[in-house]
């Protein structure tokens, strides 16, 4: 009981899978501490079976999400920015507890995150225009190349940018029609869980974004070797030995792999991530009279 006489209502940090908030099937949790060493919460410690379930949810959602119009996907991403704006204070508080620093710095990072959503939301219906092409061919044909989503993308989210880095990895993947299974920052997973709550109220169909918390080294190999995952983002793998193992596992079913050099997430992004999670489809069509 707190000083005000109320019973403390503490938040349970759960997973976000298939539009729901389950605990880990393993029943495990792990202690999350803040920058100053204080205990913040117990987060779910996901197992390989949670990875499996998340991939099933992502696969089930992928077709519907990819066939939604680009305009609609953009609107939904923009909606996520709106919802985040409403929880600005909560995010800033969680970030400050996790990363330390001043309230102002934390707020600046939340603002940058919301701006990142908006930036990528705007790209939804422009990616095909920029990455697609009408190719010149020597015959009476239209030859058109257009970007299509890669499919289900496994994202190992940046370890040291628990919110801005997370959104910078998720948004470019989903805006083009991919669905994602995200392994959140191991030491700072709480903002990711709250982001799940934002996405759940942003018109995203369940399964488009699935967020797991736990030990990266335990889950990542199962995500990397899963034959129903089409792409793998290794941004959050700091250990080069683990990264090599994951790349090798990913090669088994020819996953597209992104293993970027250290990134400054505060800088304006390039098209690299958008481009990575699309495949180019080229069609020939007879030119009419």
């Amino acid at each position, binding site marked *: 009981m707190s000083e005000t006489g109320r019973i403390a209502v503490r938040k349970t940090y759960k997973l976000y899978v298939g539009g729901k908030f389950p605990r880990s099937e393993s029943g495990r949790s792990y202690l999350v501490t803040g920058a100053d060493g204080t205990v913040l919460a117990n987060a779910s410690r996901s197992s390989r079976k949670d990875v*499996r379930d998340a*991939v099933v949810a992502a*696969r089930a959602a992928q077709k519907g999400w990819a066939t939604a119009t680009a305009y609609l996907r953009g609107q939904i991403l923009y909606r996520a920015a709106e919802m985040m704006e409403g929880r600005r204070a909560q995010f800033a508080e969680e970030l400050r507890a996790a990363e330390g620093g001043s309230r102002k710095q934390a707020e600046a990072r939340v603002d940058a995150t919301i701006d990142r959503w908006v930036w990528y939301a705007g790209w939804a219906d422009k990616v095909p225009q920029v990455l697609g092409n009408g190719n010149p061919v020597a015959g009476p044909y239209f030859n058109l190349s257009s970007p299509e989503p890669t499919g289900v993308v496994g994202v190992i989210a940046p370890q040291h940018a628990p919110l801005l880095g997370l959104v910078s990895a998720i948004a470019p993947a989903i805006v083009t029609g991919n669905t994602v299974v995200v392994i959140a920052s191991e030491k700072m997973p709480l903002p990711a869980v709250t982001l799940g709550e934002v996405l759940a109220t942003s018109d995203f169909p369940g399964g488009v974004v699935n967020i797991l918390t736990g030990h990266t080294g335990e889950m990542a190999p*199962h995500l990397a*070797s*899963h*034959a*129903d*995952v089409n792409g793998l983002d290794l941004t959050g793998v700091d250990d080069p030995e683990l990264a090599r193992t994951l790349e090798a*596992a990913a090669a*088994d079913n020819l996953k597209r792999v992104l293993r970027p050099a250290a990134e400054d997430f505060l800088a304006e992004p390039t098209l690299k991530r958008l481009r990575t999670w699309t495949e180019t489809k080229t069609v020939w069509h007879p030119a009419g009279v």
Partner: protein
Amino acid sequence: MTELSTLLAGLPGVDQVGAEQRAASLATRSIKTSAKAWAIDLSIRMVDLTTLEGADTPGKVRTLCAKAIRPEPSDPTCPSTAAICVYPSMVPVAAAALKGSGVHLASVATAFPSGQAPLQVKLDDTRAAVEAGADEIDMVISRGAFLAGDYQHVFDEIVAIKEACGKAHLKVILETGELGTYDNVRKASWLAMRAGADFIKTSTGKVAPAATLPVTMIMLEAVRDFRELTGRQVGVKPAGGIKTTKDAMKYLVVVNEVAGPDWLDPDWFRFGASSLLNDLLMQRQKLATGHYSGPDYVTVD
């Protein structure tokens, strides 16, 4: 009272809560590693690979037959399924495709799925399927007559169909989703077995709920008790709604614990399913390769 109604009236009622709890507790067993590999292969051998759609074409049936014979073309150690299950009009196509493979050919008959047709039509339906090459007949009981209490009518119908089957095995579909209570499931099971059923089957797959674990457990109790009483062994086939390997494992545990290991054989226990087979194959691949497989690595039916 006739002998039949005395028998049915004498059956004890089912403790609904107890039955559901027992089924739920058996479903918590965990089957791993080599036992899992064994159970997956056994499950594949127990599948009646089914397509019962208005849109079935000869091409689709032929494809499915090929899949039943060799579910995993890249792996010769993968067993065939027990049977193919189709509508009577598709029996000639399936018979040609399955010839010499050892895979059984089951045909639904008797105005499947409703069973609402005159007896003569049902008999003709059955004879036509058998003549075209079906060696197993899946008939539906007249639920209307059963629910109205006209057990003799249902009994006589099964006896007549059994005769029309000749050498073909007869599976009697109780359509438990329409029977309402577990007591009725038990009654219908005994009625069908007394009338000569070789198999009792839960559902058509066209009515929800289809097969459930408690219903299957009650039917397994019935076949166990029936063998004790008469010496004749009857098989059980849950059908509809069994989609994952995990589901199949739960059923196998119940078979073993309730009826006994004698029933852990494709001759005595079957799964009526279509999508289950792909999940079994994906789990099989997982055990072979060590990593999770996906729907890209099995055929689209």
